[in-house]
């Protein structure tokens, strides 16, 4: 009965966290093991007693502060210095700015929301097709959870019990690969559609743009540098990043109003508790997975089909693309990691880092695939473009992600080389 309860509750739009908890309650009742109820609430609390999880509210706060602090437009301006002069300049600016932003923001939906508002109108007024503009922005948002910091990687690291700092490092090469593949897509579409020509900035103007953006670049430097050189844990570097974001936005750029801090902390609390609560519920749901031996049963099924790790990852990718159409991003990673990770590491000897990168990127893609594609709808509402028009321009990017996923599945070193 438990699977029925799970699916019925999920599709009736019961909050995902409560679906997990209710399924666990039902399962315990059915199995007659009701002594587990005595420790049910304790287990939910214990699911949060993890130092790594602290990074989630802190990275969210950094995003909030960055948003209010006027960093977005300065980062876009800096991107203009490097790629503004090419044909389709603004499309490349969009991509490069997304890459900078991804090194500050850890959430695809947050980044898509910010960037759609910031850059789609500019692209449209320069003569780009609105669908193409919004699609480029939405695709660029996929970089957020791959390039560190990444909310997905924090959660995967917590669930998989691997160091979050190393998980971040694992995302760097895949992030660059993804950026390059998107650049290629933009080039191809640009040829075909004759993107407007861009203009290079004059030297003094370019220097000014670089100078303005420099303080904002302290944030990714603090995050990646802190982790790379082992100075700070990801949690600490997130706190430092939020402090820098606050100081730069307030004192250097003069755009962040300290009296707005209250609202920002409130939004941080709302958004972080949404995600962290799902992890709490997932810890009681873990009973169902463990007592039902779901990974073992699934492993027996899959190992009878293939013994090749690459084939296994392809099967996982195909299955998760379907999952991603219905359940997005972080909710999906919380659901599938405890089931699939033991199979990947146990039966196929796949590195948890490689598996994490592949699975996270795959499920992030779900944010852009209908019918449930929050990222797509955010891009649509923020840029005032119908989802259909975005989807029509989006598919080359989706194909690019799929190809990158295959590469990442085939070459483990793309994920593990930097660790």
């Amino acid at each position: 009965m438990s699977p029925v309860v799970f699916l019925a509750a999920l599709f009736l739009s019961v909050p995902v966290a409560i679906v997990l908890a209710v399924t666990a309650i039902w399962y315990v009742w059915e199995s007659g093991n009701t002594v587990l109820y005595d420790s049910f609430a304790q287990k939910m609390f214990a699911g949060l007693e993890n130092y790594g999880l602290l990074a989630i509210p802190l990275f969210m706060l950094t995003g909030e502060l960055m948003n209010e602090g006027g960093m977005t437009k300065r980062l876009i301006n800096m991107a203009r210095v490097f790629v503004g002069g090419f044909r389709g300049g603004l499309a490349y600016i969009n991509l490069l700015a997304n890459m900078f932003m991804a090194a500050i923001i850890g959430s695809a939906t947050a980044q898509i929301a910010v960037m759609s508002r910031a850059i789609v109108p500019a692209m449209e007024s320069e003569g780009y097709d609105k669908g193409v503009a919004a699609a480029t922005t939405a695709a660029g948002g996929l970089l957020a959870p791959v390039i560190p910091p990444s909310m997905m990687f924090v959660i995967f690291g917590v669930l998989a019990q691997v160091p979050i700092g190393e998980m971040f490092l694992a995302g760097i090469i895949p992030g660059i690969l993804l950026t390059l593949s998107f650049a290629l897509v933009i080039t191809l579409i640009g040829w075909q559609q004759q993107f407007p020509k861009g203009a290079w900035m004059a030297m003094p103007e370019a220097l000014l743009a670089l100078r303005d953006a420099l303080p904002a670049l302290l944030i990714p430097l603090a995050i990646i540098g802190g982790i790379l050189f082992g100075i700070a844990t990801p949690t600490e570097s997130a706190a430092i990043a939020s402090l820098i974001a606050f100081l730069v936005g307030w004192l250097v750029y003069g755009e962040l109003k300290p009296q707005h801090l209250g609202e920002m902390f409130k939004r941080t609390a709302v958004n972080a508790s949404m995600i962290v609560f799902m992890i709490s519920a997932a810890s009681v749901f873990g009973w169902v997975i463990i007592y039902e031996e779901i990974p073992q049963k699934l492993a027996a099924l899959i190992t009878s089909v293939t013994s090749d790790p690459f084939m296994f990852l392809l099967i996982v990718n195909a299955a998760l693309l379907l999952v991603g159409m219905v359940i997005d991003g972080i909710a999906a990673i919380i659901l599938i990691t405890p089931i699939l990770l033991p199979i990947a590491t146990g039966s196929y000897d796949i590195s948890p880092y490689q598996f994490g990168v592949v699975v996270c990127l795959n499920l992030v893609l779900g944010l852009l695939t209908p019918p449930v594609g929050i990222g797509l709808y955010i891009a649509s509402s923020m840029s005032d473009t119908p989802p259909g028009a975005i989807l029509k321009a989006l598919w080359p990017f989706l194909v690019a992600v799929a190809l990158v996923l295959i590469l990442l599945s085939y070459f483990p070193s793309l994920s593990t080389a930097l660790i």
Partner: protein
Amino acid sequence: MLFRISAFWARIELGAAALLAVTVTLLILLNVLTRNIGSALYWVDELAIYAMAWMTFLGASAALHHRNSVAITLLPDAVSPGARFVMRKIVDIVVLAFALCMLWFCWRWFMPLGLARSGFDVMAFQGSTFNFIYAEPTLTLGLPKYLFWSVMWLFALGATLHSLAHLSGAPTAPKDAT
């Protein structure tokens, strides 16, 4: 009336959650600072984790009032308004059932009656129930852990209040779940 209480309580929960988010941030910054001047405070990490746990459960309860928890809205979005109304009521019932279960779990865990029966003598309580909840210490804070665990009561009570208020058919502006 019930809805007004629910809204009021959600406001308090959110305010407290925001303060706890501030606390988490300051504690971790304090950690960075004290570690770099060579006098690390050993209790900061644990306190920060409990602050986050409190933020999470208070925020999650408030999210039930605002109906902005993460949910799969594929089906309700696709059906007629009438069917959607019915579905929403079913969701409210499921959430209420969950909240009542949580209350029951907290009751079984904290055993307030048993504690009262032993005259609030923890040793006698433990002797008769083999429930050691009131003896469990925190690792570094020097406080008993049940103080921090008590947020589960707040969560269970808040969730019960919010789901009851929704179920009693109050005028809400339904928000999209994102």
